[in-house]
């Protein structure tokens, strides 16, 4: 039963065509009404906030790395490398995300430069993940369509737990690098990466592998772990915050819906966490209006909050809901968190019965069944 349910997440299985047939793929999603004049103000780009934040971010990494190197060989180096590792292996995710949307900076080349750097740090191919994230925004938590569903029903708990130190993601990233360097994509990637874009994937993989080969060569040649601790290693020992933040986005929420309020959370965070996460905690707002740069998301929240369930007051408050929900989904895969909207809010957008969040089985097109090897009766 669980295995069958998990198979529904495959982009190459029958669920993909079923979602298309049910009108779930590339559907029309609910968005709060924001006057055009105000939306233009919110969408407006500026280089200053992101350059300031990026200089601080890179400066802190340089500082912590420098102190770690200075104390190398002593336990005093550990806290500095932990801080460096968290900045490298966790917060590169939000930089990757914002720069990938192209919203962080007004100047395009700075944005793309950060995107390439952050993609390398987080070990994501910049091309395949750009298309993966594009699909995630088109078909957010639509089974068989969204390649970025982090917590499935039932959750693969062992994988999630060992992955907080990158033990799934990093080996997978290297396997993909070798595959891409050989000029091949996975079947899922082939579903969303256009043929004209694939040469970029292969080229980047070869460059990345060369960088890691030099890093390992230096480590072996000089008989020290230091190069690996500085490059690549932080994606393992510094990954904790990546998942700590990102599970708050969608875990335990509705699937196969067309209203971001049913499948996404907005969580209030302190100033430090919002700096580290680049305001991605305003995630409902981001999905509704991905054009709005991270530094205007708090303002956007004020514009649309009348339509949203109250934001979770803290990360702790979010996890008090997420953990029981995910555990309950281990035995009840139709369960999902459905929140009360405030009085006066636009009602949940559920154009069809399949959009209620439970992700009940869809009618699978006969061609898809045939491909799976189970011909329909009659």
């Amino acid at each position: 039963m669980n295995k069958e349910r998990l198979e529904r997440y495959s982009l190459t299985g029958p669920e993909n065509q079923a979602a298309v047939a049910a009108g779930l793929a590339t559907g029309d999603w609910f968005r709060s009404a924001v006057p055009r004049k105000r939306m233009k103000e919110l969408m407006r780009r500026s280089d200053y906030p992101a350059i300031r934040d990026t200089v601080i971010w890179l400066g802190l990494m340089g500082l912590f790395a420098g102190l770690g190197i200075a104390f190398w060989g002593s336990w005093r180096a550990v806290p500095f490398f932990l801080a460096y590792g968290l900045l490298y292996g966790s917060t590169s995710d939000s930089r990757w995300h914002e720069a990938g949307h192209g919203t962080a900076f007004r100047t395009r080349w700075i944005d793309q430069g950060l995107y390439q750097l952050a993609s390398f740090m987080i070990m994501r191919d910049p091309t395949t993940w750009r298309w993966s994230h594009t699909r995630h925004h088109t078909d957010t938590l639509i089974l068989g369509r969204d390649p970025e569903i982090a917590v499935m029903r039932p959750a693969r708990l062992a994988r999630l737990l060992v992955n907080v130190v990158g033990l799934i993601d990093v080996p997978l990233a290297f396997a993909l690098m070798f595959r891409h360097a050989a000029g091949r994509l996975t079947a899922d990637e082939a579903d969303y990466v256009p043929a004209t874009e694939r040469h970029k994937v292969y080229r980047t993989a070869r460059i990345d592998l060369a960088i890691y080969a030099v890093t390992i060569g230096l480590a072996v040649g000089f008989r020290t772990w230091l190069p690996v601790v500085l490059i690549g290693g932080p994606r393992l020992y510094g990954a904790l915050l990546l998942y700590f933040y990102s599970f708050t986005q969608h875990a335990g929420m509705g699937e196969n819906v067309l209203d971001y309020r049913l499948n996404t959370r907005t969580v209030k965070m302190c100033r430090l966490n919002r700096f580290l996460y680049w305001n991605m905690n305003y995630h409902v707002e981001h999905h509704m209006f991905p054009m709005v740069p991270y530094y205007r998301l708090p303002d956007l929240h004020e514009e649309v909050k009348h339509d949203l369930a109250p934001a979770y007051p803290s990360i702790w408050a979010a996890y008090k809901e997420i953990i029981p929900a995910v555990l309950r989904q281990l035995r009840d895969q139709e369960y999902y968190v459905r929140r009360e909207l405030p009085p006066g809010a636009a009602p949940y957008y559920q154009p069809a019965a399949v959009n209620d969040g439970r992700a009940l089985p869809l009618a699978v097109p006969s061609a898809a069944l045939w491909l799976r090897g189970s011909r329909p009766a009659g």
Partner: protein
Amino acid sequence: MASWIAACGVNDVDPEDVIPFSHDGVDYAIYRSPDDEYYATDGHCTHEKTLLCDGLVMGRVIECPKHNGRFDYVSGKALGAPVLEDVRTYPVTVADGTVFIEVG
């Protein structure tokens, strides 16, 4: 057969902005550049048919509101992933305070 259609008044669209226009069931986007020139393209992004009129105009670039794909709205050229196909442009002229586009 091509014909000129009145799309909007010159002041209906702000500088460095875009508005929608529909004619015969077809959606168009009408642009006013920062230097007060007018342009027109198909109304939808070539990537996933999102209406471009909800997007952001920056100089001579329109950014799609759904996935941030960018076009040069003067030439129609797609400026990179996720838009890979150019958007169609239409000739525009202004006469007596009205913006006309040539369709068909």
